[in-house]
């Protein structure tokens, strides 16, 4: 009986799993591509650093905080016009990826900023004293020194995206989390709910484990 219902669930689960991967992959890529430079900018424009710029710093900081303070469900719905503009549709996993990306960019940017802040200021100063350009300092000092922290940041962002993507069901995004909500929460189908939750737990464990391993590999300190 249990096995039967699980077997019936497999095609549905399979689809949901792929949807989750799809949404997480897209939004994670966007988060890294946009969030990394944003995080670096937030850091290097800070007081006492080599590209100190109070105006840029406060504007960026304000925008980042603003996006981060909006509850994700509201962001998901509120960004529908933007989603329509970018993807041409407002439903499905691609559409959900837009809001996920928008939420992930500032999240990841703050993590990058924090890992850069961990770097000994003296090391940055030594690079300035050597006569290096800002670009060289970013590329050859900041990024290598913050690499373990940034890898941890990617891990945390990925896991958050897996969790946030559960809400993508609201715009028909699908995904495992959505499956859990639709079957488990609305229909009281415990089998589906428990199965999906187990899958989510495994997924998060694997991501965390892989992330930790990679972080250790890139850590030369």
């Amino acid at each position, binding site marked *: 009986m249990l096995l039967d219902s699980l077997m019936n669930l497999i095609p549905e689960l399979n689809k949901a799993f792929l949807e989750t991967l799809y949404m997480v992959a897209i939004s994670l890529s966007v988060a890294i591509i946009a969030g990394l430079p944003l995080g670096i900018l937030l850091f290097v424009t800070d007081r006492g650093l080599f590209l100190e710029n109070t105006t840029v710093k406060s504007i960026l900081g304000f925008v980042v905080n603003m996006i981060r303070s909006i509850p994700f469900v509201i962001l998901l719905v509120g960004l529908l016009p933007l989603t329509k503009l970018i993807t041409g549709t407002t439903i499905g996993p691609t559409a959900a990826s837009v809001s996920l990306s928008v939420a992930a960019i500032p999240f990841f940017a703050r993590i990058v900023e924090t890992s850069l802040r961990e770097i000994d200021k*003296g090391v940055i100063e030594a690079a300035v004293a*050597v*006569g290096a350009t800002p670009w060289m300092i970013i590329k*050859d000092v900041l990024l290598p020194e913050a690499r373990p922290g940034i890898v941890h940041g990617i891990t945390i962002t990925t896991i958050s995206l897996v969790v946030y993507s559960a809400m993508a069901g609201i715009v028909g995004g699908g995904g495992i989390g959505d499956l859990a909500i639709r079957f488990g929460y609305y229909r009281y189908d415990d089998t589906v709910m428990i199965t999906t939750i187990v899958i989510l737990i495994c997924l998060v464990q694997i991501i965390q484990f892989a992330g930790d391993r990679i972080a250790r590999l890139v850590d030369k*300190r």
Partner: protein
Amino acid sequence: MIEVKNLVKVYSTKKNKVIGVDNVSLTIKNGEIFGIVGYSGAGKSTLLRCLNLLERPTSGQVIIDGVDLTTLNKKELRQARLKIGMIFQHFHLVSSKTVFENVAFALKAAKKSKDEIEKRVNELLEMVGLSDKRDAYPSQLSGGQKQRVGIARALANEPTVLLCDEATSALDPSTTKSILALLKKINRELGITIVLITHEMEVVKDICDRIAVMQDGKVIELGTVYDIFTNPKEELTKSFINSVLQFDLPDHLLKKRTGTIVKIQFKGEIAEEAIVSDMLQTFKVKGNILHGKIEYIQDMPLGIFVMELTGDPDEIQRAIDYISLRTNGLEVIASAA
């Protein structure tokens, strides 16, 4: 040549202003090792950091080899910094890069080609004695080795000036010696002007040509190391020198003594003359040496003796006058009761 003119650095916070460097002017000659000493908070670190504009002075000029750094734009300043090496107390190496990459970074900043970088880094590592650590990461090195990497990085672009920010303060005494010897070698062989700040008078005594003593952001005394050591004028300078040349006698020893205790200082050639024995033969006093030491500062002797003189008070006074005339200083520490 480094010329500092009317340099002022003020740190403004909302509540108050803190003066880091208070109107300092000084000239550091080409090829000399110039020491700046003072307690922490005296402004010596700020002054040093103004020399390559890591700290931008509030007012005043920093002129290195005829170029006023304060007038340069960002790009010109980067170019100027290529020729001003700097090493730090805590080394400040990039921990995720190998020894080779850390030194190569400085050459990359000068836009050198890959081949040039390869060749020059090997040369530099050879010079600082770290050829075998080329591919090691900083975490695998000892403090002294890290500082050698720092020195190699600082010298990569053949600078004319090397700034040392408490470069030996985090090292043990024997490593300090070897780093100082390396700095001296660099100074002698490459003719690089070295400006160092330290709170350790040992360091100054070992390698500096001239020193400036700083207090509350001002230079209160400046001169050659030998002159400052043999004839300090300010209280602070004296206390610094005492930290190296400890001639203080234990209190219990002073209390037990009945005669007149004098401290005699000899400088240069007279340190080698037999003034004390002449005095003892000329006057009817007995001399008992309690403490004595000859220090060599910049290869010139500085002798200091503490003696107890006993005998007729008038004879003692005459003996004291005799010695005062013939030496560079006599100080009566305790008179006979």
